[in-house]
């Protein structure tokens, strides 16, 4: 029990430091460079409810992809996002893009990717035959490093366009702990991907 007592004390201390000091501000990813023209904009999947409602994160990514297209940064906009129930996130996002004036011929969807690695592999098979090898990649700031590595491994040249990468630095303890949690979650995912890559 002595070990648990020390572990408990260390945990409370760590939570206190994370919640009540600006330490989590250091976990914010660097602001990205301004986006430059590419062959395609790829919006990675996030999360959608079974009722077909896009999550806030999914909507944010989709809107950023649409904005990049409207700025003329690429001739193709690819919406990713898996099927959950009768609807696929990719299709719901594509419908949103059409409603906001994106021409159907500029839109592609991929609902088959379940993981970041899947999505990178499937995007290469979708875009390479169209000659699109330079992509503007849209995902969250925390996820970008891992996503970029997977896309570059497939052969893409990647220009990152992270969503929410420059979050307002919150002083709310709950927000700070949320940031620390997302960072820890992404760190674990990177370790898992590295282990999977080492195993082949």
């Amino acid at each position, binding site marked *: *029990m002595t*070990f*648990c*007592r*020390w*572990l*408990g*004390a260390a*945990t*409370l201390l760590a939570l206190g430091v994370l*919640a*009540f000091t600006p330490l989590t501000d250091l976990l914010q990813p660097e602001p990205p460079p301004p986006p430059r023209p590419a062959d395609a904009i790829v919006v990675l999947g996030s999360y959608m409810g079974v009722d077909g409602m896009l999550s806030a994160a999914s909507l944010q990514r989709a809107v950023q992809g649409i904005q990049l297209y409207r700025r003329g940064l690429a001739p193709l906009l690819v919406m990713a996002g*898996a099927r959950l129930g009768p609807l696929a996130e990719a299709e719901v996002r594509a419908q949103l893009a059409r409603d906001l004036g994106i021409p159907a011929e500029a839109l592609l969807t991929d609902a088959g990717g*379940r993981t970041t690695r899947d999505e990178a592999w499937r995007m290469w098979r979708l875009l390479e035959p169209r000659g699109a090898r330079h992509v503007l990649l849209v995902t969250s700031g925390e996820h970008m490093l891992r996503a970029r590595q997977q896309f570059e491994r497939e052969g893409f040249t990647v220009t990152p366009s992270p969503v929410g990468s420059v979050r307002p630095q919150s*002083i*709310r*303890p709950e927000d700070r702990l949320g940031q620390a*949690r997302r960072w820890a*979650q992404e760190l674990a*995912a990177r370790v*898992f991907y590295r282990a999977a890559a080492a195993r082949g």
Partner: protein
Amino acid sequence: MDALFLLLPAVLTSAGAWLLGRRRGRSAGGLRIAVARLLECVGLTVVFAVLNTALGAALTLLARALSQGFVSLYMVTDSVLLGISALQAVALRWWWASVAERDP
């Protein structure tokens, strides 16, 4: 600094509870033991959370390998699992305490 203001009500209610306890004859040494047990519960929660997450991830990967279906690894990072870990920790701590009281 503003965030520290959040702690003020907790400090005041803790002080109130301490005063009430002292007035009812509870010893200061008893509070020290209670804090130690609280820390043990927090430590046990961390242990259970790590074990639950690791086992959950392993089962998720196994389910992916054995079936066509897909279970997201993000499921095992759900906050509910942390709550369950806390309940496991408290139950285990009380169980050990009851054994110690019965068989000192």
